[in-house]
């Protein structure tokens, strides 16, 4: 396996911890749900924004930038934290998160309202085919940038995901990389009990995708998966990232109550104690 350089690995780990901490605090302060869904994809988002995506907050509308779509739009609270840390807007702007009259609420709005957001998502099954549209456009316009979309496993219940999954290989969209935050839960129960998507890797492969299965909390594995995706020619890529819902806070991990719950005072304290190795604060 191609390992990350030690310093890079540490940097990503530190940022992830920081983002987890801020996400939990925001969920407490603004009473924003979907905490479990946010915590499961922190490492993927941090890797994307701090190592993978060719983007520049100063030139956030640059025509040649990579595009990232949060197809699982309900993880917007963590995306906003990542965007702020990356420098798209200031941390002080995040203070109004969840307040009446704020643009910062539970899902990403359309582009032009919050810097760095490429598409409004939140209704599942939209962002993925929109990303495919962007990938077709890049081919037509002969542009070299890549398009990334982060999906949830529950989102793969939606028919429009599989419509897009059928089309992208036909068009040989090797500029498109989908990542599935496979935390094994959806709103009301286990993914396998509600709408079993297994055998998941086989499904994507049989549809003609370059499909990899990784540990979505291991930066070395995430790193290698993207390297492999870039080496893939004439096929779109999907990375099935096995994750843990609520990752990083022991009493939230793999407990689906945290799909809708927000922490109380006591829970906040316990969570912050677990996330306290953050040296930045």
């Amino acid at each position, binding site marked *: 396996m191609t390992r990350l350089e030690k310093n890079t690995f540490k940097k990503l780990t530190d940022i992830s911890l920081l983002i987890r901490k801020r996400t939990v605090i925001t969920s407490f302060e603004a009473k924003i749900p979907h905490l479990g869904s946010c915590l499961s994809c922190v490492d993927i988002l941090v890797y994307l924004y701090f190592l993978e995506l060719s983007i520049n907050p100063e030139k956030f509308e640059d025509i040649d930038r990579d595009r990232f779509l949060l197809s699982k739009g309900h993880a917007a609270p963590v995306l906003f934290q990542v965007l702020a840390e990356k420098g798209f807007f200031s941390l002080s702007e995040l203070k109004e998160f969840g307040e009446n009259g704020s643009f910062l609420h539970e899902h990403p709005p359309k582009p032009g309202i919050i810097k760095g957001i490429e598409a409004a998502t939140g209704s599942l099954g939209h962002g993925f*085919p*929109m990303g*495919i549209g962007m990938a077709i456009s890049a081919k037509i316009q002969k542009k070299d940038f890549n398009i990334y979309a982060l999906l949830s496993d529950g989102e793969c219940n939606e028919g*429009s995901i599989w*419509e897009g999954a059928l089309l992208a290989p036909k068009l040989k969209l090797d500029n498109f990389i989908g990542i599935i935050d496979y935390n094994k839960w959806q709103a009301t129960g286990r993914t396998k009990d509600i709408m079993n998507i297994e055998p998941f890797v086989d499904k994507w492969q049989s549809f003609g995708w370059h499909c990899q299965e990784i540990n979505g909390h291991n930066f070395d594995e995430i790193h290698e998966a993207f390297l492999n995706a870039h080496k893939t020619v004439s096929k779109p890529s999907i990375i099935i990232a096995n994750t843990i819902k609520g990752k990083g806070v022991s009493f939230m991990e793999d407990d689906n109550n945290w799909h809708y719950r927000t922490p109380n005072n006591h829970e906040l304290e316990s969570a912050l104690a677990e996330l306290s190795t953050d040296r930045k604060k």
Partner: protein
Amino acid sequence: MRNTFAREMTIFAKERSDVVLLSGDIGNRMFDDFKIIAPERFVNCGIAEASMMSIASGMALSGLRPVVYTITPFLTSRCFEQIKIGIAYHNANVIIVGTGSGLSYAELGPTHHSLEDIGILSTLPGLRILAPCDSLELSAQLKESLSFDGPTYIRIGKKGEPNLIQNTIKTSIGKINLIKDGCDILIMGIGPILGEALEASNNIKSVFDKNVKVVSLGSIEPLDESFLSEMVEKNFKCWITLEEHGFNGGVGSKINNWLIQNVKKRNFDVINLCTPNRFINKLGKQNYLRKELKLDSAAIFEIIRKYV
């Protein structure tokens, strides 16, 4: 109409490198010329309209000008949410062209009738809604839609519809188009069914020597309100609205609403001719259903004769 659409698209393929044509696996041979000019800009998205609509939205956000084409009900009611979010909310430069609208596919049954598309789509902010009556109006609307920013829905018929508009059309979005001038009765409607109004108008002229004005309200959103204001001042005995669409959310209800909001006292009747609020099970050709539903020229003639 659809041949005109294909011909116009071929011209756009040549003139504009940003125009992309997305088809839901219909009209394949129709677009052969387009595909010769710009093969990479023709995308057959398969029989998968929901994702096709989102794909178009993604293309528009990337700076292209996608035109999405398939049979009206599959393009409208089937993917309403994709239009709401991906197209209308994002104010995406997408042109949605539904073919076989209204009762064009009469004999194909309620699955293929589209008698609610204008109603549902006009609930969405910022979406232009156009329903040309003939190929001339369609050509003008297509050109204008491509030159304007923002999303557009164009509702077209099938093929072989006669041209109804006599003059050349300069602007069409936000403007009515005159089919026949007159001063006794006013018929305003949308789509090729206005041919029935024109025929009724000609028959009234020869039998009663009265003049029925017939106009196409091809631009439903935005509506030509200045024209309506102008008509209120005239001395028509009756306004008739005509459409192959249900009353709810259709042109008739929009004209009625406009009158309630803008005209305190009117001295003319208003009659709304539209399809009934039920699924149509006894099928036949389009002209058969128009007759059955009392939307044909004979039925329109009978209504007008009471006023002349």
